[in-house]
């Protein structure tokens, strides 16, 4: 794609790369103030297609097993090595995590668990050092404070919850602990806009057990699944959730899931200052090093095969963790991270999550796993963050623990007691016997940065467009193995107390990282934020330290990954960035 053959288009005020959740939220704040905004998205629409209509919507093989909605790994995948001394291998079938594609991004087919992250997470290094002393953080754990406080983000969390009709129960309302909510959550100004989802039978068993046996405080998972019909502040509507068990990995056929394709893009496309260009695969940025400014965005129009340079006064990268990092690396903006010296920043602090679970079997309880929504979960935070004393434990971090019942889809979600044969009559018998009577207790384990876990460009492998693939150097290191062992053991204890007749194998997350197993799509880092230009890619206001008119948003800016799902803070940061860009548009310069 020689830039000589690139057609140069007229400049736009704000050009956003990627048309997913973060992009839609940034754009909303901008066009409300009448600022010209263009979004470039590589994919098309899912509204009205087979993926969104009954009966084809309920096709487990097509959408779930075969990943019909996700990024096509034949075109672009990632390579992996577990240490710098190994050769990388491509993940030839994307399975461990599943980046989205198309208007609305992965948040069209997300589950919808929507958390706020508290001040502990935003000032992680400082908090740990204050409580346990400076020596508690191992030298190879590159923890950093975010340079952002919860108070700054609270109004944006609140706005996102209203825009997406989030359901849940407050646990901390302006400092007052609320019964039935999560007492460990950061104080919120307002109750959730919608009531919690109905609890599942498995959730009831979990709730009764942890209250009675352990005195824990279970709470309903906060959910972007709408329990009732809902109208958001923009007048956009959600239907009522039908608990159909085809939610995460699917497009909601009832329009009852808070997603960008239902709540953001239809509204945006009615606004005169907004333009969305579909099927535009962004290949790079045109960066003028001497002025420290990005001239514009290079893209390939997949509908015509033409290459364009789209100039922008302001450019925003909102193309998910992996593309955000890859574009900065290929454009040479910011110093690539070097694990040898520990210097450089782009690609640094790549994190995943150490998720684990144990199957539980209750012969006498009808758990009916198919009566479920993406977020019908009942959770506890007693072993998350720093809500428990880490002194002497030998690790930092934790995870939420709970019973998430989101589907009984029979290809992927059947569970059988250990020792069951894998085929034959007894296998069939066991399926018949146990299908309606199992659930899993799981933990969403945090993952803190490690000096040797990072992203760079692969020297050998390219995508379908001829560009280098992004290379992950990653494995679960000692801290995460210990976190996972700890929270998984808590799962086992609770599972026993719940009275399960059988427990599945107690398998915490282990090394080597297994690319074949889905472990959640929460990959973070690579373009991290921070107050120090020497150790971060973007400022706490998401402005690139080396390119004043370039901003980055998404979980790529997270300095670590926690024991809660990431999209709440992604959304809050995106809405705040939208407001910041209104200021920047009026008065360009370094944002403070």
């Amino acid at each position, binding site marked *: 794609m020689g830039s000589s053959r690139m057609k140069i288009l007229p400049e736009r005020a704000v050009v956003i790369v990627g048309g997913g959740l973060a992009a839609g939220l940034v754009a909303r704040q901008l066009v409300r103030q009448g600022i010209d905004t263009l979004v470039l998205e590589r994919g098309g629409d899912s509204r009205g297609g087979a993926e969104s209509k009954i009966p084809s919507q309920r096709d*487990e*093989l097509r959408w779930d097993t*075969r990943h019909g909605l996700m990024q096509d790994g034949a075109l672009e995948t990632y390579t992996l090595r577990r240490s710098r001394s190994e050769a990388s291998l491509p993940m030839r079938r994307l399975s461990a995590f599943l980046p989205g594609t198309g208007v609305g991004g992965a948040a069209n087919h997300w589950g919808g668990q929507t958390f706020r992250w508290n001040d502990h997470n935003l000032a992680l290094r400082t908090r740990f050092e204050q409580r346990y002393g400076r020596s508690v953080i191992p030298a190879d754990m590159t923890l950093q404070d975010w340079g952002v406080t919860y108070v700054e983000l609270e109004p944006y969390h609140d706005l996102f919850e209203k825009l997406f009709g989030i359901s849940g129960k407050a646990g901390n309302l302006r400092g007052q602990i609320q019964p039935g909510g999560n007492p460990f959550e950061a104080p919120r100004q307002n109750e959730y806009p919608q009531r919690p989802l109905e609890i599942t039978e498995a959730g009831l068993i979990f709730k009764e057990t942890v209250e009675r046996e352990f005195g824990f405080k279970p709470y309903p998972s906060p959910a972007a699944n709408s329990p009732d019909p809902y109208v958001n502040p923009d007048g956009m509507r959600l239907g009522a959730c039908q*608990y*159909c068990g085809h939610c995460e990995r699917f497009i909601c056929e009832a329009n009852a899931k808070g997603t960008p394709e239902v709540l953001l893009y239809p509204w945006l496309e009615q606004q005169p200052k907004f333009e969305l260009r579909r099927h535009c695969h962004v290949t790079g940025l045109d960066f003028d090093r001497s002025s420290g400014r990005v001239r514009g965005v290079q893209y390939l129009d997949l509908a015509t095969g033409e290459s364009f340079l789209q100039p922008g006064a302001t450019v925003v990268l909102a193309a998910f963790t992996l593309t955000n990092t890859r574009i900065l690396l290929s454009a040479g903006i910011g110093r690539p991270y070097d694990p040898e010296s520990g210097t450089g920043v782009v690609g640094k602090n790549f994190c995943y999550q150490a998720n684990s679970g144990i199957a539980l079997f209750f012969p006498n309880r*009808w758990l009916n796993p198919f009566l479920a929504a993406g977020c019908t979960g009942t959770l506890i935070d007693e072993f998350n963050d720093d809500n428990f004393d880490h002194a002497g434990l030998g690790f930092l971090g934790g995870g939420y623990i709970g019973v998430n019942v989101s589907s009984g889809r029979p*290809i992927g979600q059947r569970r059988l007691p250990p020792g069951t044969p894998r085929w034959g009559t007894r296998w069939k018998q066991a399926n018949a016997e146990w299908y309606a009577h199992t659930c899993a207790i799981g933990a969403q384990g945090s993952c803190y940065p490690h000096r040797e876990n990072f992203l760079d460009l692969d020297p050998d492998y390219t995508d379908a467009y001829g560009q280098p693939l992004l290379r992950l150097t990653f494995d679960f290191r000692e801290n995460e193995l210990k976190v996972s062992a700890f929270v998984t053991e808590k799962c086992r204890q609770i599972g026993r107390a719940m009275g399960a007749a059988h427990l599945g194998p107690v398998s915490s997350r282990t090394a080597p990282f297994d690319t*074949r197993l889905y472990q959640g799509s929460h990959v973070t880092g690579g373009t991290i934020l921070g107050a120090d230009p020497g150790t971060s890619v973007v400022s706490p206001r998401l402005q690139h330290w080396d390119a004043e008119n370039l901003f980055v948003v998404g979980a790529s800016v997270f300095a670590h990954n926690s024991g809660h799902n990431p999209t709440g803070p992604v959304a809050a940061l995106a809405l705040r960035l939208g407001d910041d860009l209104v200021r920047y548009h009026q008065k360009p310069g370094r944002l403070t």
Partner: protein
Amino acid sequence: MNSSDVSSRGRRAFFRTAVLAAGAATLNPTPSQGAPGDATPAPAAPVGYLCFSPDEAAFVEALVEVMCPADDLTPGGIDCGLAYFMDRQLAGPFGKGDRLYRRGPWRPGRPEDGYQLPLTPEQFFKAGIKAANQACLAAHRRQFPELTAEEADRMLQAFSTGDLKAPVFGFSEWFNDLVYPLFTQACFADPIYGGNRGKVFWSLIGYPGLPAVNGLNMVKYRGKPYPGAHPPKSIEDFS
């Protein structure tokens, strides 16, 4: 053509006839649970393979009959459409390498790196059949379709545990990461793909299939047997 080819062909012909003759009755193992209006016969089973050769078909038919023997719970694997499902999946986009990154360099990996061969899934599946038949010849002097059910079962165990090594690749990856997933998909995917004929596996476990609405059921049947699972509904029922 050797004698085993002949006998496996004869066996397959027998299975096909059985499918056609048995009609709807054997396709629904729990007819008593169906609503009266649901007694419509299942559509005639499609006959013929798109991508399997006769020898490959014999192997797969024998495989699904071992993994899903006819019993009180379901008809045998062939009558459940399991071999047909695998044939169609391997003949279609999945088998041809859809969504699979297929650029070099090709490097050997560990199992945790996932599939790393240049072969398409269809080619890999078939290469595995050849190697598996050879392993059976070595162990029993007969190819897989000619083994007794017990012998075949033990061979599958050996493939799955990695106790047996194929000359070029690991049987355990072939079996566990390709054959076995296709088997469970064949049992539990929507019948529109050709397996799970008559929704037999959904009925067996009590999966209701494609509920259009469940809002009220969520509360009404919390902790109780769910009557909507009998009979389950598939894509065809909504089409």
